[in-house]
């Protein structure tokens, strides 16, 4: 029976618990928020444009008079999805490539890792801009772009774990006992290589949200009028002097979610590090 005991350690670490709390909060908002949002996030009201926070609009309104609280609430769902989907897009192919490269080595390793090096040679945001420019600016394309950019990171992490693991006696023992490559790779090597990528994927969620927001900010990601936080930030930029709340609230939301993922990721690293784990 798998033991969840180590995860209890997350509660003991105050910062990891805070991270978990922040993520749970945003997740709750994403799931139930749209039902309780005070206004329609798309309804414009030209007469109420750039209104400061008030009882009717706790976060104020933007340049078209839309309710910022409602838009931030709807944006939570988009951001969580961006995190999950783009991390999946990098996690699965990256892990598979890393497993194959590390385990089989030789020419396959060279081909895979040189391709990864080519992707890594570009600054992440530049490559993401490049990919969205080719695919066309839209939310799904943003997720693809952000996902593809981080494939090499997972491939490298997994490959280095596999290189160490395949020399371990227990991996060789499975071959001695008649196990084939598939069994060795997926049932015995992969689970041992998981902890570092769990940590990296958690931190990666935060990075993905940030990258997607950056693309949205640059006009290459989600398109207006979608209530994506990066797009909202970009719209608010022009009114920073006269109505700072337009940019501040989506910016704060991004901050909270990314902080949550980072704290949780750090906490997971402490918990999953086998050298720190007590028997």
């Amino acid at each position, binding site marked *: *029976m798998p*033991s969840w005991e180590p995860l209890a350690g997350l509660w003991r670490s105050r910062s990891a618990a805070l991270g978990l709390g922040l993520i749970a909060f945003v997740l709750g908002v994403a799931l139930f928020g749209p039902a309780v949002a005070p206004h329609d996030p798309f309804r414009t009201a030209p007469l109420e444009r750039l209104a400061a926070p008030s009882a009717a609009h706790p976060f104020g309104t933007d340049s078209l008079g839309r309710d910022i609280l409602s838009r931030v609430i709807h944006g939570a769902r988009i951001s969580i999805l961006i995190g999950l989907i783009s991390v999946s897009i990098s996690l699965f192919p990256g892990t598979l490539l890393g497993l194959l490269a590390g385990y089989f080595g*030789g020419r396959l390793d060279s081909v895979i890792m040189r391709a990864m090096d080519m992707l890594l040679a570009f600054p992440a945001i530049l490559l993401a801009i490049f990919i969205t420019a080719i695919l066309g600016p839209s939310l799904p394309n943003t997720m693809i772009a952000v996902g593809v950019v981080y494939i090499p990171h997972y491939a490298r992490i997994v490959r280095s774990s596999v290189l160490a693991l395949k020399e*371990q*006696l*227990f*991996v*060789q*023992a*499975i*071959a*001695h*006992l*008649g*196990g*084939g490559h598939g*069994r060795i790779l997926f*049932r*015995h090597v992969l*689970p*041992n290589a998981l902890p570092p990528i769990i940590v990296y994927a958690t931190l990666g969620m935060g990075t993905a949200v940030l990258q997607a927001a950056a693309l949205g900010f640059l006009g290459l990601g989600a398109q207006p009028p979608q209530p994506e936080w990066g797009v909202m930030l970009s719209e608010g930029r022009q009114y920073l002097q006269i109505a700072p709340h337009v940019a501040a609230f989506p910016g704060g939301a991004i901050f909270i979610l990314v902080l949550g993922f980072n704290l949780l990721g750090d906490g997971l690293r402490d918990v999953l590090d*086998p050298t720190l784990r007590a*028997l």
Partner: protein
Amino acid sequence: MGAAAVLSISGLRTEFRTRRGPVAAVDGLDLELPAGETFGLVGESGCGKSVTALSILRLLPRPAGRVAAGSIRFEGEDLLALPEAAMRRIRGNRISMIFQEPMTSLNPVLPVGFQIEEVLRKHRGLSAREARAEAGGLLARVGMPDPQSRLDDYPHQLSGGMRQRAMIAIALACRPALMIADEPTTALDVTIQAQILELISRLQAEFGMSVLLITHDLGVVAETCREAAVMYAGRIVERAAVARLYARPAHPYTVGLFRSLPRAVGRGGKLTPIPGTVPHPAELPPGCAFQERCFQRHAACREDPPWAEVATGHFARCWKPLG
């Protein structure tokens, strides 16, 4: 050597690619393993014991290592000619293996029960429930205290001796005809060593299997084997029944091994080490590989020494065998 052979190796030559060209780690090895007995294969590190085991299972590190010549016959088949899929059905099933390091030979993220069940499910096609019952039974047979509840333990929750017992249970799972034990007790405390050796002997008799015990420890051989062979620089240099080998070793290398062995009885006697070191396989002298370290070398040693029968069932590869 009355019993039929379970495994017969002839003319085995295993090479490794190096920068200096192919080097033979095992060269011209002939070995008949008697069925239903424990056979000792003794030698110092680097003499080719473990490479022999890897050659039998065809698990040499690729692409560096390969069997260049020879045949290995097991249960009527030449293992070297089998397709890989057939070989996988033999490994862990008809021939199984236990290792030196019980600390690292089990997967740390899976319960030991799962690892035993995996072999049973794969090779014997048992259902999950049957495999679990059988795994509990196996742990009981290898003397694991409280076997049923140990099934759910992870390797780090077991002591070194218990892990080696679990490893033996895995090796035994399919009732192999041959179990290769590569230095099974080297990493264990002396008291645990004795228990594990006793366990291997008992299981060998119970299951009627053959055991190839690979070790550098002459004491281990004396305790468990009826017959043993001594290996030096990739070849077998002497073979005899253990009692005979210990009483009257014939090859100067074997004699040297015994002289460098500390004894618990008596005191004051100096140990006599064998001078020099094992020559690198690429730099073997022509003829006898041991000549440069031998206390009785002479001109003939530059020719390949014959495999001479010193006494009935006692062979030595030497021009001037003693004993």
